[in-house]
């Protein structure tokens, strides 16, 4: 079966955050463009796994990855490192979306090649809307390398 091409890969293990995020995308008509995976291992499989490698489809690579840091199995920074060391994913924009704003995390993320670092926002009036805004930026405004 042919795999759907997603513009956004959301790597989020927290179901609450994932629910809020997906609701916001849905409300803004973006949900069909967003692929949600629940941890780093799953993301790795999706991006660099056997299945992906066999198909060799470049279009399966998303245009932006929203990556949580604190995750079971493979955590965000490990995954980031793997993405940056693979030719296929080397230049995919990665936005770190995490509840941590530790300076060490920020620095390490940038060192490993993150393109942006965003601390999760809790907005009573517009929950998760900030993710939509970020997605629009990367999908609509950012010029990525081909």
């Amino acid at each position: 079966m042919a795999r759907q091409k997603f513009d956004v890969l959301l790597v989020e293990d927290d179901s609450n955050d994932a629910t809020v995020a997906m609701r916001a995308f849905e409300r803004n008509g973006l949900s069909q463009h967003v692929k949600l995976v629940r941890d780093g291992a799953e993301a790795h499989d999706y991006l660099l796994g056997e299945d992906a490698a066999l198909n060799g489809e470049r279009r399966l690579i998303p245009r932006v990855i929203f990556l949580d840091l604190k995750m079971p199995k493979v955590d965000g920074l490990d995954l980031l490192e793997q993405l940056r060391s693979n030719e296929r994913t080397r230049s995919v924009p990665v936005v770190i979306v995490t509840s941590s704003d530790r300076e060490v995390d920020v620095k390490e993320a940038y060192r490993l090649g993150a393109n942006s670092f965003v601390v999760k926002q809790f907005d009573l009036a517009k929950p998760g809307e900030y993710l939509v805004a970020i997605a629009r930026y990367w999908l609509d405004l950012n010029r990525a390398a081909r």
Partner: protein
Amino acid sequence: MDEGRNLARPPPLGGRPHGDAAERRGTPRLLPALVVLALGLAGTFELWRTIQRAQDAELESNAAAVATLLARVIEAQIDDHELDALRRWAESGPDIDSATWQRSAELFLADHPSFGALVRIDERGRPGDAAGSAEPRNALRGLIPQTAGQAPQAVEATRSPEGLVGPIRLADGRAALGVSILARRGRAEPREVFALLDPSVALRRVLEHGAAGYSIRVLFRNEELFRATANGSEEQADRYWKAADVALSVNPPWTVAVQPTAMLTSGAHQHGALLALAAGLAVSVLAAVLVYEAQIVRARGIRLARASADLLQSIDETEREGIEVRELRGALETRVTQRTATLQETIEELETFNYSVAHDLRSPMGAVINFTGIIEHDYGATLDEHVKDYLSRISASAAGAVALMNGLLAFSQSGREQLRKCDIDMRELVEGVRDDLDGARQSDSDVIEIGALPHAFADPSMMRRVLMNLISNALKFAAPGTPAKVEVGGYEEGREIVFFVRDQGVGFDARYAQKLFGVFERLHSSDEFEGHGVGLAIVSRLIRRHGGRVWAKGAVGKGAQFFFSLPNSGSTDVGANGTPEV
């Protein structure tokens, strides 16, 4: 251990086979000095004695010679002068008549004062004619019976016809002798004549000035006939008397004794002995002193040796102690290092725990906020007003919790970040803060005045946070209804650079000034002023990490002034808990 030093060390004194207590104690010994002094004195005394003996011998032999000489002088005087004159007179007319004899005798006595009286023995052997003054004549008569009663022939046959009788004391204390002369003339019958001889008169002329430096005694049968003391000198001990026999032509003989005067025994002749004595004494004392000095030096040497031995021992002990101390210190350091590591680990664990708690609680709290928001947003129209109120309370509490956790995370982070110091233009930094805070101002009429600000050597991002917190605090606590007026300044004071942020706001109770800097400490309720009570705690922690201090002055309703200082040198680096980072 240094072997060379062991070799240089004297052997332990206690192990020596000999050495008296004084030596062991290292005190100078008096005995050798005393022995030397005694030997010296003995030698000196012996020398003095020898010299004195030699001088005595010389004096004695001199005295003996003088005595012999004087004996000859006396013999000549008595025999050749007095007795010869008596004989010649006696033989000039032994048998003359009484009146003639008497006149002749008086003339003779007048010419010869040595003779006090004359008596002629008659044919019957009895004292006959006599001449001289009464007392000598009577004295002479008293002597005659000892020899009278013998016919001259018998006298001549049995004994020497001439002889001495006596002595006899005259009234004036002088000793006189009877001299018998047998006078012959031609073929006539010899006639015996007695004369009273006063030797002192006879000898005075020859002896009184004839033996300078010597006292002279002339004795007859232990009776003193004459005495002459030279120049009034004291007489010496008897051993100095030297005697010689005076062999007269009449018997029995006299004895002449001479003695050197004190001038001779203690005078110039004694100088050598005295000099020897003095020199000997001086040498003895000097030698004793030298020996004692040597003893002192030796004792000092022993003391020094002991002291150095003790010193070496104490150095050894000190070294041992030093080693022990080093070991202890090493153990202590190890323990401190271990404890510090453990403590650091604990602190890190605690920080991690804090962080994890804050972080992990933040997500659920965020979920509460998010979902209450979604409910309000999606179903608000259908909800009862009470439900809406409860939902808003839920979300407000969750938001408060999130803010608290954000503060806690910030505080936790303020202790974990590494210090990166550099020179900071504080004015520029404060201006940046002011610009950033534009949005936080409650009204456009709020004023932030920036005064003189010295440069600082510190971590710029931390200083920025410090000033951000202080200035935003000052803005926040402005008196209700009036525009905030905040003044930022700084000055150098001693070894510190002091910065301050002053406001004219609500102030605080000065009694609780130090509580301001505690975590989650608030002097105002959160209903009055928003905030979670970590801003000043973060300021305090960041400043302490720089080795500086924080303090505050203020009064309720009269504004507050927050100070912080930084070391002027800028070299001290202080750990997360306020301990210097090395």
